[in-house]
């Protein structure tokens, strides 16, 4: 059961990474009229269209992660401590903390995108924070999932 939830957590995170990447690229490096290449298609023109999807995906991924966290604490972290793989524990510590702070940022993220377009710097900064956090958490989660292979 937990393994299935972990896989769903990973799949949702993958969708989230895709959505935030499209949005961030579209925000900082928007597609220009006439550009049709593969890379320019990744740089979407309607970045705002991703806001609700990112909100929902982030919350779903977060809730699932929080639900399976106790399994990590009881069954995964103690062996990591025994193996002295402190970097792996550290990767997870950073992940959980960044995820929590970004969760509290979500209402502001939605608000600045939807209601306060004149505050462009705030919108860009919050989006960049989410982009970095989501990518870090995605990579850290995968390393942690595969850590026995690295050990």
């Amino acid at each position, binding site marked *: 059961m937990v393994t299935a939830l972990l896989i769903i957590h990973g799949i949702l995170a993958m969708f989230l990474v895709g959505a935030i990447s499209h949005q961030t690229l579209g925000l900082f490096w928007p597609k220009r009229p006439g550009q049709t290449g593969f890379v320019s298609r990744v740089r979407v023109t309607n970045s705002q269209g991703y806001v609700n999807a990112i909100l929902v995906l982030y919350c779903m991924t977060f809730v699932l992660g929080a639900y399976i966290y106790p399994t990590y604490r*009881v069954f995964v972290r103690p062996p990591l401590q025994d193996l002295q793989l402190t970097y792996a524990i550290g990767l997870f510590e950073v992940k959980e903390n960044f995820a929590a702070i970004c969760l509290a*940022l979500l209402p*502001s993220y939605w608000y600045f995108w939807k209601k306060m377009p004149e505050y462009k710097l705030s919108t860009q900064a919050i989006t960049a924070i989410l982009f970095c956090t989501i990518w870090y958490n995605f990579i850290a989660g995968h390393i942690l999932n595969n850590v026995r292979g690295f050990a």
Partner: protein
Amino acid sequence: MNKIAARVFPAFAIGFALFYAPGYSFTGNTSTVSWPLFTYFPAIEQWRWLLVTGNDNSGPPMWWYGWIASSVIVGLVFALIALLLPERAIRNILATLVWIVPICAFLFLLNWELPWFVTGWKPIWFN
């Protein structure tokens, strides 16, 4: 609605981050302040109020849920205070602090998380 949200949402994020970062950093078996609102013991599936340390019978404690709960309360208090202040006066300040404070919180947290990655690292707080 817009005038309320312009203060409530950023103030909540700021209050949350301002409490969460030291909450994580200063929680430990010898803490004198209970930063988490409650502790969860996953091995025995029990919840206890405030900061409780683990032992051989209870297994490892989880404070993460408790930190989030405490931070939500602090965030709501910040949001309430922001509601009492004039919207025009604080709108620009909140719009800036809403991203500066989380970045500072990340840096503060990284300082406390570096010992996991760098052997012998001591958080700058104590240096």
